[in-house]
């Protein structure tokens, strides 16, 4: 079998995933921390000040990576939700449940840092333009997913019900992304492009990309941490938990 496919299937096994998560947590967390320190130093200190906004633009190094993560995590959550609904893979349900609080947190950070950035630059903490409104809707979609999943007594049914909700809400992600093109918004348009030239200067772009990478690695760290915890909680009766983790021999 294709090694990548095999690795993917192996990850679906709870004891294998547990060992995988235990192994990779320190690395993802450690590298995320190092990259964050580099990115923060570069972004908050070494990068040049903006000609219009001065030093207040530096919050971009937290705001934009958080915004990217809030959308990326939702998409990953929705993909895992779809896998959980179609194939009923238990680990997909656990990854789905683990993604939700992390994504909600990044969305909240995006909104709060955006508000703090808006006050000195736009003169207002909040405007009901398309980008801000759809990001706030994203926060409530996350709340709905978390609330619905926790309302069920059976965690597997709860995860699948929340997965249906997450898939219904995934339509919000392109709305958020294209909101600055489709509507006249106060929030600025796209400056960083995946393909082609970005309109942001490289001296400001590099710390942004470093912080974005740090955010992704932090997300992986947090995901593995939560997934490990959920796995132990829901598999606690299983033999592998008792023998490998708790060291109880029988």
């Amino acid at each position: 079998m294709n090694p990548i496919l095999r690795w993917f299937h192996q990850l679906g096994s709870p004891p294998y995933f547990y060992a995988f998560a235990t192994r990779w947590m320190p690395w993802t967390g450690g590298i995320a921390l190092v990259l964050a320190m580099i990115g923060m130093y570069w972004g908050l200190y070494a990068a040049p000040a903006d000609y219009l906004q001065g030093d207040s633009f530096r919050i971009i190094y937290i705001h934009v990576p958080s915004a990217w993560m809030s959308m990326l995590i939702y998409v990953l959550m929705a993909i895992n939700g779809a896998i959980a609904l179609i194939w009923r893979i238990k680990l997909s349900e656990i990854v789905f449940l683990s993604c939700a609080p992390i994504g909600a947190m990044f969305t909240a950070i995006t909104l709060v840092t955006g508000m703090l950035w808006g006050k000195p630059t736009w003169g207002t903490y909040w405007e009901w333009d398309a980008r801000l409104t759809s990001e706030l809707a994203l926060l409530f979609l996350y709340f709905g997913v978390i609330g619905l999943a926790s309302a069920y007594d059976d965690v597997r049914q709860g995860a699948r019900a929340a997965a249906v909700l997450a898939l219904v809400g995934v339509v919000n992600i392109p709305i958020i992304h294209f909101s600055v093109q489709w509507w006249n918004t106060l929030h600025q348009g796209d400056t960083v492009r995946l393909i082609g030239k970005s309109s942001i200067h490289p001296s400001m772009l590099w710390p942004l990309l470093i912080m974005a990478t740090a955010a992704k690695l932090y997300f992986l760290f947090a995901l593995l941490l939560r997934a490990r915890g959920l796995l132990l909680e829901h598999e606690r009766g299983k033999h592998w938990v008792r023998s490998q983790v708790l060291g109880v021999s029988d």
Partner: protein
Amino acid sequence: MSSFRPYIGLLRRDVRLAVRRRADLLMPLAFAVLVVLLFSVALGGSANKLAPVAAPVIWVTVLLSSFLSLEGMFRPDADDGTLDQWLCGSTSMIGLMFAKAAAHWLLYGVGLTLATPLLAMLLKLPADQLPVLLLALAIGTLGATQIGLIAAALTARLRRSGILLAIIVMPLFLPLLIFGSGAVDAVRLGDSPRSALMLLAAQTLMLLTLAPLAAAAGLKIGSDSPP
């Protein structure tokens, strides 16, 4: 047409049951008038304060009132085992969801839309906005019923789902509200409401086709049958 009989049967059953429990049928209307009352009192009651916000307040009122009817959409069926019969049976779940949504819209969506002239009078809505408001509400409540169908299906077997229903439904109502209210706003500005109404209708069409699917999937989750 004989193959439609189970679905028409469900539609007729729901309508008949609701009409017999007239209190449940009229509660969303009473709630709508109460909300309008609260807004009118808070705004001071004068026409120059009420008229600019009349249409948006009516939209919000209609959407909030639709919550009241959502909890009872599947709860009785879940409690007495009808849901399990549907899941075991050979009738199409999607068709049953469609019938359920149709009944709900006829009872509550159309009802609230018909009550709108009363609400418009209370809120001193400018007369030229009323026709577009009615059209937008008729289309929008059809879409809102579908969204409510999904949320009710996902929470059908939960014990107390009131505020959770609201949290699930509100972000999904936003696109309907933006264009529904936007259509009336266009009339206020003297523009054509056509583009807003088209986008509203597009959303409702998409919901009409996809929501019964999601609702059927949601109902299957609570049971122990494979999807």
